[in-house]
């Protein structure tokens, strides 16, 4: 009796839930190989500039030209693509194309060698990004990463006529801005706490030691030896109140909004910010300057990166279709221009309507000697640091931002290097 009632109840619940699950899953199934289509899955980072919607629109012309291929955009399961990869690889659930990652020693065995493809060899920064002489990624352009955007009105208010060209000038300008009633530096929590100290320090550190990456990875120099001065400077800015209170609670999109709303004077960020600036209402006039050199450094390097690299996974199921997709993404004029414009990147021969800010960036890009471009965070090509450096560096910088001592940060970084070299 009880058994029968229970069985009926359970069966009813199961039927109901199967029905509801069917409704929910229908949306997902529609993407799967319907009618003999090949499904190519691409794992991408979703950012305020590169939204889910934009990605789908980006690949739509490709899908139209290749009716037998269906592109599915996958969002990361963790914070970003980098953190999702171990899980995906471990579970055997590997996408066909992965965006935004650079090859590392561990990852290379899982990647398809692209050396046979002409479009990979002629992609921007291709030769700088080879691994063991082979090509594994193709990007769409370059981004500048050690730059400061500034509010032109703030500089005018503070009586700053020319952008600073040395760190000492920069430091003095910060005080002038504060005295004029402006919050000098826009920084925050999330993943980008590290940008401010990195942009302030790295160009000079590598200028003094062009082999810094290799030496750090080999243990010839330590973090505390090379970065302590920069971090002391950074900590002094925090103490003097040059950063907003509770900055560590500010998220990436909020920081962007605050700067565009004219609440802060200087915003350390990569060139992709220009795309967000172009979309804004333009009430705030924004300029940009390269990160100045510290004492004794006359040619600070320029942190840069390969914009939107794409790689093919060996374990992906449809390599040919995936290769076609990546070829489209890095060579098709309309698609490349779209990607450059939306994310503030640059590439010779691919012009897009640029506003004043973008033109300023273009100028900095053109005027920097090729040898002065260096990577940031974990690095690329020959100049790499142990994987995970960027994330650990970010965490330690948050420690300083919340008032912790510089010695703790450097000690922890040294110990991280010891454990991860």
């Amino acid at each position, binding site marked *: 009796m009880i058994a029968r009632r229970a069985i009926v109840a359970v069966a009813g619940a*199961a039927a*109901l*839930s199967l029905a509801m699950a*069917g409704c929910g*899953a229908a949306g997902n199934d529609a993407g799967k190989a319907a009618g003999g289509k090949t499904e190519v899955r691409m794992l991408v980072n979703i950012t305020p500039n590169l939204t*889910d919607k934009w990605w789908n629109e980006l690949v739509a012309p490709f899908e139209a030209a290749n009716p037998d291929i269906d592109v599915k955009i*996958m969002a990361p399961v963790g914070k970003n693509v980098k953190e999702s990869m171990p899980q995906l690889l*471990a*579970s055997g659930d590997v996408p066909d194309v992965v965006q935004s990652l650079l090859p590392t020693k561990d990852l290379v065995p899982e990647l398809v060698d692209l050396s046979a493809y002409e479009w990979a060899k002629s992609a921007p920064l291709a030769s700088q990004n080879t691994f063991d002489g082979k090509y594994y990624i193709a990007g769409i352009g370059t981004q500048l990463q050690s730059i400061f955007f500034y509010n032109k009105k703030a500089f005018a208010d503070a009586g700053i006529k020319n952008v600073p060209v040395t760190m000492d000038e920069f430091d003095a300008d910060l005080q002038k801005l504060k005295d004029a009633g402006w919050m000098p530096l826009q920084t925050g929590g999330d993943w980008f706490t590290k940008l401010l100290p990195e942009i302030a320090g790295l160009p000079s550190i590598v200028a003094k030691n062009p082999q810094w990456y290799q030496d750090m990875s080999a243990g010839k120099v330590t973090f505390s030896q090379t970065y302590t001065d920069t971090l002391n400077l950074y900590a002094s800015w925090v103490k003097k109140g040059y950063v907003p209170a509770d900055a560590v609670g500010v998220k990436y999109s909020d920081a962007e909004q605050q700067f565009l709303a004219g609440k802060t004077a200087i915003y350390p960020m990569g060139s992709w910010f220009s795309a967000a600036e172009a979309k804004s209402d333009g009430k705030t006039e924004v300029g940009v300057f390269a990160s100045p050199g510290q004492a004794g450094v006359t040619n600070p390097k320029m942190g840069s990166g390969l914009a939107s690299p794409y790689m093919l996974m060996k374990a992906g199921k449809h390599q040919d279709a995936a290769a076609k997709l990546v070829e489209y993404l890095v060579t098709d004029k309309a698609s490349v221009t779209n990607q450059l414009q939306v994310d503030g990147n640059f590439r010779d021969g691919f012009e897009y309507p640029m506003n004043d800010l973008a033109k300023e960036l273009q100028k900095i890009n053109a005027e920097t000697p090729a040898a002065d471009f260096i990577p940031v965070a974990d690095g690329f090509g020959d100049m790499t640091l142990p994987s995970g450096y960027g994330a650990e560096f970010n965490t330690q910088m948050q420690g300083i931002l919340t008032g912790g001592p510089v010695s703790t940060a450097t000690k922890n970084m040294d110990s991280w290097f010891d454990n991860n070299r």
Partner: protein
Amino acid sequence: MPTTQTLNNTATDVAAPATVSNAFGGKRRRKMAKRNELSLTSQIVKWTILGALSLIMIIPLYIMVISAFKSQAEILNNPLGISPATFTLEYIQRALTSEAFNVVGAYGITLLFVVLVSVFCVLLSAPVAYVIARGQRKWHLALLLLFVSGLFIPSQMTLIPVVFVLRVLGLMGTIPGFVLFETALTLPVTIFLFSAYLRTVPREIDEAAAIDGAGKIRAFWSCIFPLMRPTVATVVVLHSISVWNDFVNPQIVLGPGSGIYTVTTGVYAAIGQYSTEYTTVFPTLLLAVAPAIIFFFFMQRFIIGGLAAGATKG
């Protein structure tokens, strides 16, 4: 009349005790009278404290509900209030039709998991608990220890290696694989509770069932199992709540590639980096929490009672 006299006497005894000495001193009479007074003040104090604590419990829920219907500016400027003028369904609608993740669509899958795991949990646990409860040999004790050890093994320890086991079985990222893992996680507690309960079921019932000529297995399901109703109910309720609310296990086992999102993994995917866009956060949270709250509201006496019963029996 004797009765009234006795009554009177009893009344006097209680109300005005005289000389009986006791272990706690002889100030009874005064204390009795005092207690009545204290009762009123202590009642007021008690309910004030409880009231204040209740506010701390209820206000977050209240804020979540009303904020789902307000604009970002309203949420920031007027956190506690809501008026017809500022009420809007726009954000709920957006959450319902979100491309990033569909909370309501996940209801079905999550409910399916809850049902499947509960069914399998009971199907697997009851027989073995019976064997353990009735068993007298050493290996029966070993069996119990095997499952009870699972109580101390954190599921996070087995979560990542299980990925490889499921991969070998070809069940990674599938519904059966996930159900299998979740069911395994429920076995220790369930078997523990079931075997403790079955020990209180007299053996005569076993013998009665055997006399009827049924095989041991048939005998168990048709005669003994129906007696386990209360503890089965407790267990089903406990596991339903934990499976519905589970986050880590579906996140890792189902992963992003399978396209299967439960309510909690979906919430994480939907909110993720938008955690300060309150017009996304609150409607998503509300939609995710609504079924659980409604279920709890209707079943609360049952849930709370079942838990309490399980606790005293265990």
